[in-house]
């Protein structure tokens, strides 16, 4: 008997002692599957929505008056904090939204300074059925979004916070000659295990 067969026999014996009951999962799986199929199509798709890819344009030259004024007076921008007043600052001219199957992702702010990039976004319309059931319910992982630049560079978060449905993440600075980026949210936070990503 070769070692591979011995190994699998030994582990087979161990596995049988760990799970000795030969439980038939079919009734549970069939019931859960049929329940899932009965859900309204929109809700079903909503539960499965995991990857939201939102492309947005950062307007290099258009700086909203309010942010500019606050920066000039206080050196402070809401959502960013104190900024270096001697350098160029770029912001998203207006919020950008994408809606899929009733769930809306909105990038409310994109603020680019010489030392960091701040993205503030919110999600709306996640149905209760898509939430994990109970405190021990799994949620999809990883849920942290990344920024993708046209040259293929991926920027990972290096800080941030969230409250309610609004979240802000800090990223490394984006080069001044880059005016577009893709914001990739791998999956929605607090989404039930049945909605875990496949891609």
């Amino acid at each position, binding site marked *: *008997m070769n*070692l*591979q*067969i*011995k*190994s*699998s026999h*030994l*582990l*087979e*014996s*161990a*596995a*049988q*002692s*760990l*799970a*000795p*009951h*030969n*439980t*038939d*999962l*079919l009734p*549970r*799986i*069939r019931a*859960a*599957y*049929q329940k*899932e199929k009965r859900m309204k199509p929109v809700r079903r798709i909503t539960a*499965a929505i995991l990857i939201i890819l939102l492309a947005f344009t950062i307007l290099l030259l258009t700086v909203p008056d309010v942010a500019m004024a606050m920066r000039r007076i206080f050196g402070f921008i809401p959502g960013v904090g104190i900024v270096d007043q001697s350098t160029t600052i770029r912001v998203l001219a207006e919020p950008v939204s994408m809606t899929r199957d009733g769930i809306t992702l909105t990038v409310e702010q994109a603020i680019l300074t010489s030392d960091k990039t701040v993205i503030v976004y919110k999600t709306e319309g996640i149905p209760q059925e898509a939430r994990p059931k109970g405190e021990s319910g*799994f949620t999809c*992982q990883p849920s942290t979004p990344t920024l993708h630049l046209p040259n293929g560079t991926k920027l990972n978060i290096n800080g941030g916070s969230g409250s309610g449905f609004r979240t802000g993440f800090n990223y490394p600075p984006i080069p001044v000659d880059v005016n577009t980026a893709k914001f990739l949210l791998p999956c929605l936070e607090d989404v039930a*295990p*049945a909605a*875990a990503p*496949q891609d």
Partner: protein
Amino acid sequence: MVNVSAQPTEKFMDDLEAIRRLKRGDIGGLEILVSVHQSKAIRVAALIVGDEQTAEDVTQDTFLKIFKHIGRFDESRPFEPYLMRSVVHAARDAAQKNSKWQSLDVEDGEETIERLIAQAESVESQVEQKQHEGEILGAMFKLSPRQRAVIVQRYYLGLSEKEMSEEMDVAPGTIKWLLNAARTRLRDLLRSKRSVE
């Protein structure tokens, strides 16, 4: 290797037919796939998570996830390896949620799990063999979930290091390192247990 009742080709065709039925909305296809594969899937999960209830939950969730996206399943590929890979990943994730383990320093992998298993085979009495198996199992659950997962893939599912590397999308060296670390850790744990005794 784990016992398989049907010939590989026959099994592949049965699975394929079941998948096609499920894709057409026939729940009979689901029933076939669950009935055929659930026992092995639960055992694979149990070897990684360590308890039957969690293993069943992991297996159920994995089946449901696969069935939910069955329309995208590539029919040219066998179902069982895909299922087992999904179960291993889900079990590893479940185990990691509650695990308390430390990373390991790899010194050498000279004494391998194969040798430990050979020792288990060589002992005369069935009682001693069971005891030895229990020791190995106890030591296995002191490994990290990731290490347990590679042990299960290599020694229970019989995957080669190359197949594991491709499935996990990591460098072959990483698989070698993980296996080596797991073997070394097992050896140390068994040694320390015996020295206490």
